[in-house]
């Protein structure tokens, strides 16, 4: 990423979208909309002081919704460019309420609430589409109950949980447990407030709230308005402390998720959604199981799949190592249903096709290996560029010109063309670069070397 940001020949237009393309191979005119960040990219140092002070928490898309960021934010800590952005959907100032704390805090004077979108016109000889993919939304599979069961997560969410820079610092804390912790935090805040209110009365009347309340319950101070208020405050306080103690007791029993289930082909190889195979998900489940075991020695994982497609270089060996050293079992069977068990433990019901028996098994967490779906903006983008899509909305290429699209001068590489793993994406990216170079690099007649 850093290499891209620093290269003198790369002009990076982030937070931008292609709006119009005209022309033909060798001579395309492209209109790009540079969306307004409300932050001056040239001035922002990426220090983050604004985000610290911003009062508005927002679900964090980078952490797959598992954490929060602020209305003014940096997409992720190592992002390039490191410039911050204000989310117009959540910013109070931009939605008519009074705020502007970020602007007051910014030492670089980079915040500009009056910033406009910028339209840029580019003239290029060729275009490479590398728009990637989207994660399939498993809530479309009702029997997996993804939205209802807190401890059923997608592979990408699991990656964020595993990551040292993610919302749990790399601990496999279960989402249901995290929700309880969040509740505890909220209640503790309330309890803190209530305690401070009580302290005022305690000071005034020189006795503890508990002592006072006992007397009050036995009938004393019934006509004392102040003491009545105090009694009410104490009742409110008890109403918080009761549930808080219960939750805290519950939280003591929490541990990281150790019994993991990985369900392959969620959305893939499925006539209802995407009949194709997404290619890399068998491998990333194996990897996630191995890494989870590295984090916590007692982790056991079961991978439910039809065919386990470990087809890349070194992959079959990796899969076998996972089985031998990381407590991974492979079960051949497609999961029929995920239901709620005790203590928020998801229960997986499946047919073990080798044993020819239907079983149910409880786990701490279930990870769905979701399909590689065509990216959401691809239909619009294809229309703008005039390129053909296949039946699934991947960019159409032919087997023997694997990076050429239906439009000369426009190439496609990576998952936007078909689901693929990293080495294939990288190889295809170089292929697309080569094809584009054939158009872009003009040699002076008679000279051997390229004018670089």
């Amino acid at each position, binding site marked *: 990423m850093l290499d891209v940001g620093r290269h003198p020949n790369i002009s990076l237009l982030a937070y*931008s979208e292609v709006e119009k393309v005209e022309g033909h191979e060798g001579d395309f005119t492209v209109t790009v909309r540079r969306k307004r960040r409300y932050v001056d990219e040239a001035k922002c140092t990426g220090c983050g002081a604004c985000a610290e002070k911003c009062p508005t928490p927002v679900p964090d898309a980078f952490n797959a919704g598992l954490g929060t960021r602020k209305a003014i934010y940096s997409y992720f800590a190592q992002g390039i460019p490191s410039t911050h952005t204000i989310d117009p959907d959540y910013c109070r100032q931009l939605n008519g309420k009074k705020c502007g704390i970020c602007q007051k805090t910014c030492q670089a004077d980079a915040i500009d609430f009056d910033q406009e979108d910028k339209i840029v016109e580019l003239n290029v000889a060729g275009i490479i589409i590398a728009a990637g993919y989207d994660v399939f939304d498993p809530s479309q599979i009702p029997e997996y109950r993804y939205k209802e069961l807190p401890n059923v997560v997608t592979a*990408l969410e699991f990656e964020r949980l595993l990551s040292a820079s993610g919302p749990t610092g790399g601990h496999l804390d279960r989402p249901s447990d995290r929700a309880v912790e969040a509740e505890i935090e909220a209640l503790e805040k309330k309890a803190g407030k209530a305690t401070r209110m009580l302290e005022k009365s305690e000071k005034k009347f020189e006795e503890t709230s508990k002592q006072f309340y006992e007397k009050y319950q036995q009938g004393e101070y019934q006509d004392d308005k102040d003491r009545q208020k105090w009694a009410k405050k104490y009742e409110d306080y008890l109403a918080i402390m009761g549930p808080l103690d219960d939750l805290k007791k519950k939280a003591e029993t929490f541990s990281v998720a150790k019994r993991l289930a990985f369900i392959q082909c969620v959305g893939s190889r499925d006539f209802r959604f995407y009949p194709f195979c997404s290619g890399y998900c068998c491998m990333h489940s194996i990897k996630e199981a191995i890494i989870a075991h590295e984090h916590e020695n007692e982790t056991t994982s079961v991978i439910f799949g039809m065919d386990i497609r470990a087809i890349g270089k070194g992959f079959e060996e990796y899969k076998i190592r996972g089985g031998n050293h990381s407590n991974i079992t492979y079960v051949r069977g497609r999961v029929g249903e995920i239901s709620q068990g005790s203590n928020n433990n998801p229960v997986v019901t499946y047919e073990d096709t080798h044993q020819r028996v239907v079983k149910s098994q409880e786990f701490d967490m279930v990870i769905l290996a979701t399909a590689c779906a065509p990216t959401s903006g691809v239909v619009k983008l294809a229309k703008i560029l005039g390129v053909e899509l296949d039946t699934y909305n991947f960019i159409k290429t032919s087997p023997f010109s694997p990076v050429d699209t239906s439009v000369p001068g426009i190439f496609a590489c990576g998952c936007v063309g078909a689901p693929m793993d990293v080495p294939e994406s990288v190889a295809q990216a170089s292929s697309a670069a080569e094809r584009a170079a054939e158009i872009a690099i003009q040699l002076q007649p008679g000279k051997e070397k390229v004018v670089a």
Partner: protein
Amino acid sequence: MNKDILVIGGGIAGMQSSLDLADMGVKVHLVEKLPSIGGKMAQLDKTFPTNDCAI
């Protein structure tokens, strides 16, 4: 003089093709819809089979 190339998408594929072209002396305009480049790989923890950091 070389002509310019537009790359749409700042994930691993977009970044690699941009770098190759830039190293060849071609000016690349890299357009990314999110506030930062990196794509899905930046959201991954480690990659198989080497277990290297995804970033």
